[in-house]
């Protein structure tokens, strides 16, 4: 079974990226804010940037360690660059066969055979992505590296291209490492996700694991959660009371004492015009900042937190910016992370 193993320290302008990972026949996504050092890791794996120290091995072959440092052209990698880096002066077919191997059905598999004689400048974003994939795979690499593969796509085509790419990577069964700043892309494409921040791996796990038990506030906010700061204390009936920095008080089922980050996902927050009489323990009155529709859901941003509700609910409540609403959530929906 093919696998890529590495344990690296790569210098960037402001810090060293340190990362150890083993990627089997699966897709691993490295996510994190821009400037977290994600692209640096890919470039180091490809031999385009020199690590300060560490080791890279693909199956039994060592690509980099104290004595060995294979050149990019000697490493069995397929690299899909950000913005795809297709050769603008060559046709699609010549781009794909640049590595010296025949395209052998790749154009058909990626549905770009009809574009064989076109130049990259004439293609749409989705088509360019498929050409870049075909080109990267034409050399039959042992490892596939993708740098922001969804970055150059417009929002309309994003969802469908994401689905296709996911299916394609699944069929490929190649050790694949992709880099993205978008948690949704990572969750849709990858089997495991590593959250990178300031050059350190904060957490590595499935999307469900990162959402359910984020290791810290960086992971939580990256996964799309609300992160509120407060001070926790023990409350009666086995609950924790948290006095938020904003002044309000909420109750959580998690146990914690002292300074905490309160993690709360937008889809666990419901909205009403008045405080409802239900099982939710927590009610916060707040003003609406913005209302944005995302497919069949509506993302409502309040001053302190964000809620995600159905279009039907949003229509029924006739929500609009400036309006005062009550956000409700259960004590069990909250994760408390001790702040270190």
């Amino acid at each position, binding site marked *: 079974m093919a696998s890529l193993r590495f344990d690296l320290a790569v210098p960037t302008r402001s810090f060293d990226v340190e990362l150890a990972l083993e990627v089997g026949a699966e897709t691993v996504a490295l996510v994190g804010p821009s400037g977290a050092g994600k692209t640096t890791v890919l*470039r180091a794996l490809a031999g*385009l940037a020199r690590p300060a120290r560490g080791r890279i091995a693909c199956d039994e072959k060592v690509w980099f360690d104290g004595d060995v440092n294979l050149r990019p*052209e000697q490493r069995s990698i397929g*690299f899909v*660059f950000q913005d795809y880096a297709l*050769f603008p*002066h060559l046709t699609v077919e010549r781009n794909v066969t*640049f*590595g010296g191997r025949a395209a052998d059905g790749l154009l058909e598999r990626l549905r770009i055979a009809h574009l064989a004689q076109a130049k990259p*400048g004439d293609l749409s974003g989705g088509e360019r992505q498929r050409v870049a994939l075909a080109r990267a795979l034409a050399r039959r690499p042992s490892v596939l590296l993708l740098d922001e593969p969804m970055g150059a796509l417009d929002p309309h085509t994003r969802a469908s291209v994401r689905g296709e790419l996911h299916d394609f990577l699944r069929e490929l069964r190649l050790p694949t490492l992709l880099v993205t700043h978008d948690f949704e892309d990572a969750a849709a494409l990858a089997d495991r996700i590593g959250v990178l921040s300031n050059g350190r791996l904060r957490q590595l796990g499935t999307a469900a694991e990162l959402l359910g038990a984020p290791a810290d506030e960086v992971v939580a906010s990256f996964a799309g959660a609300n992160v509120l700061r407060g001070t926790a204390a023990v409350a009666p009936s086995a609950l924790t009371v948290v006095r938020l920095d904003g002044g309000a008080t909420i109750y959580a089922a998690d146990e914690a004492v002292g300074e905490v980050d309160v993690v709360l996902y937008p889809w666990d927050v419901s909205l009403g015009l008045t405080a409802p009489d239900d099982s939710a323990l927590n009610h916060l009155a707040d003003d609406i900042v913005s209302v944005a529709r995302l497919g069949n859901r509506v993302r409502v941003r309040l001053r302190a937190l964000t809620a995600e509700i159905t279009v039907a609910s949003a229509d029924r409540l006739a929500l609009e910016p400036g309006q005062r609403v009550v956000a409700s959530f259960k004590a069990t929906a909250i994760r408390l992370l001790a702040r270190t």
Partner: protein
Amino acid sequence: MRALFGAVTAAALAVVFAFLLLPIVAIFLRVPFGDLLAALGNDVTRDALVVSLKTSAIAHAAVLVFGTPAAYFLARHRFRGRGAALTLVELPLVLPPAVAGIGLLAAFGRLGLLGDELNALGIQIGFTQTAVVLAVAFVESPFYVRGAVAAFEAVDGNLLAAARTLGAGPWRVLLRVALPLAGAGLGAASALALARGLGEFGATIIFAGSLQGVTQTLPLAIYAQFDQNFDVALAIGALFILVGLGILVLLKVFGWLRFASISPFRPAASTSS
């Protein structure tokens, strides 16, 4: 005030154009087109044309062969002293050609820095056609290298990196990706350098002299003829103007090619604006 401003700028423009065009118009008014061809048939002109074409071709080939890899290196590598190297390349641009001629004489002349070594090898450079080639190459090289560095720097580094991840070694990256993509810029730099080389005068006359049929190039022939046979000097001048216009058109074409190769949208062939 606005009207006055408009009048002043328009007048300045008229002065600039009149000043730049008058000498050119004068040459063509003095030489009827028929006489121009006749004057070019003259021995002095023919010899000078042959010397100019031969030395320029050799010098230009050498500048391309050595200048292109050097420019690629300067464009692609960051190293200590890179700024100094780039400045040094431009030195001949700001030197008076006479200084270049003296310098070349001091380096390659019979009594120069390498004189003894060259003598021992039985090579004499001063006042030969080799001297013309060296002088031309010296003054035109910064025009080419400077433009070539800019052309290579304009090539997206990710394209070169992509070629390497596809298994291409450094030679293939240069030949298949960097050269084609920098081609238009290299062509423009090459045309400009060629024009400068063809017009070279000061360094040549000091380092190579002005021997008809050996080292007398077209510009030197103008100088030699203008007090003997003014019409021949004028005819050569007219020839230069035509070549110069040709090179300017070539530069425009290269400029357009560069735009077309970078633009993601191919300009439609039918539109004209």
